[in-house]
């Protein structure tokens, strides 16, 4: 059904998006928590910084990543020399680009849910002897689940569609960084390849739909548990 070319792009897209989202989750939750609960100087600045990837066109983000995280970049160079970790022109770079672009969406959704958590429940947990960490893990986090789910699916979808930052940062290398949108781009750039482009478009839509339905199902499940109807 799928050509090898499409299959490769699809698998790559899934891998890159999943890795990007999974790695984003812990810092995303942490930052959302800091923004929702913390009171510290520079909070507004941090908030803005997190939103930056939204405001800047992805191409610019890709360019900044190329300069900063490339093997000759400031941070990228240091990472490479210290840990041998390189993002350049590899799928890891594509995941990094996707993660950066999708990060604000993740953080916002989680933060919104965190702010809706009833803090009196956390108080109750404290009086039952639970320390901050346990309260966070057993009360705050589970009650934030709807937001985490929403954020995850938003970010995953955004990662699936990420194009500009990826191609600018890690280029369009078959089997390494050529995700669905990049493959789509190649076809769009080719006269007469509309059908192929449309096929890829449909694949992307189907994948996103599946992810969405799955997340909706999970969300319903958690809601049901809260309402005790199951």
């Amino acid at each position: 059904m799928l050509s090898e070319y499409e299959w490769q792009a699809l698998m790559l897209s899934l891998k890159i998006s999943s890795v990007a989202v999974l790695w984003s989750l812990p810092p995303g939750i942490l930052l959302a928590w800091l923004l929702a609960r913390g009171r510290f100087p520079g909070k507004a600045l941090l908030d803005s910084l997190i939103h930056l990837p939204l405001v800047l066109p992805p191409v610019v983000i890709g360019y900044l990543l190329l300069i900063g995280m490339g093997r000759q970049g400031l941070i990228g160079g240091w990472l490479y020399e210290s840990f041998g970790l390189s993002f350049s022109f590899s799928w890891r770079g594509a995941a990094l680009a996707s993660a950066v672009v999708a990060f604000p969406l993740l953080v916002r959704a989680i933060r919104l849910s965190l702010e809706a958590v009833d803090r009196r429940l956390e108080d109750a947990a404290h009086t039952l002897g639970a320390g901050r960490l346990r309260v966070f893990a057993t009360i705050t986090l589970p009650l934030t689940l709807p937001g985490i789910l929403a954020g995850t699916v938003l970010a995953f979808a955004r990662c699936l569609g990420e194009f500009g930052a990826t191609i600018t940062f890690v280029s369009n290398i078959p089997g390494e960084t050529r995700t669905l949108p990049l493959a789509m781009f190649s076809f769009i750039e080719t006269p007469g390849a509309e059908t192929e482009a449309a096929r890829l478009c449909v694949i992307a839509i189907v994948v996103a739909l599946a992810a969405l339905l799955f997340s909706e199902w999970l969300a319903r499940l958690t809601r049901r548990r809260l309402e005790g109807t199951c």
Partner: protein
Amino acid sequence: AESLSIYAAASLTNALNAVIAAFGETHPTRVIANYASSSTLARQIAQGAPADLYISANLQWMDYLTETGVLADDSRRTLLGNRLVLVTGTNSALVPVELDQDWNLAGALGDSRLALGDPDHVPAGRYAKEALQWLGLWPVAEPRLARANNVRGALALVERGEAPLGIVYGSDAASARVRVLAEFPARSHSPIDYPIAIVRSADRPAARELLAFLSTPQATDIFRRYGFEVR
């Protein structure tokens, strides 16, 4: 087997893929093509991308790399050329025209616009601007441009009938949804050249071998078939 990475302007996708397939039939070397806009690729190569060869649709970005010193200077040459054509959508009633200063561009456009690559940075747009200037039509055209971010963008506008006219490369006009109304005279703009070069750090026999293959009759035939001119 050895593997080569060729970074090429996106407009070459079809043609170069066919040439690489031909190369693969007679050579053990694996060739991976990476298509993006010339500028993107140039910047990445400047940042140390693992490229072996670079084909630009744009002299400026090749010059930029030459100045940066990452290219094997002696390997640079002009590989391909292209023509500039005036196209319209297949549904359009416009008829082929003679391009000279009497051509009623404004009338042909009606209340719409002329689609081309952004003359500020897209090479095809820059050539189009030269040609329009040469024809003396630039003052009429300039306020009515639809500047796309690449040739394909311009072509899409014409294909969808959004813009009645567009100026694109001959190689792009192969699309089934546009008709060529006229070809700009070669002397109306600077030559449309696609320079190629080997990246200095990747200068090895296999790269030279591929570079040579791109100029063999087998390869040039394919390029021509996709609407390119061979220099």
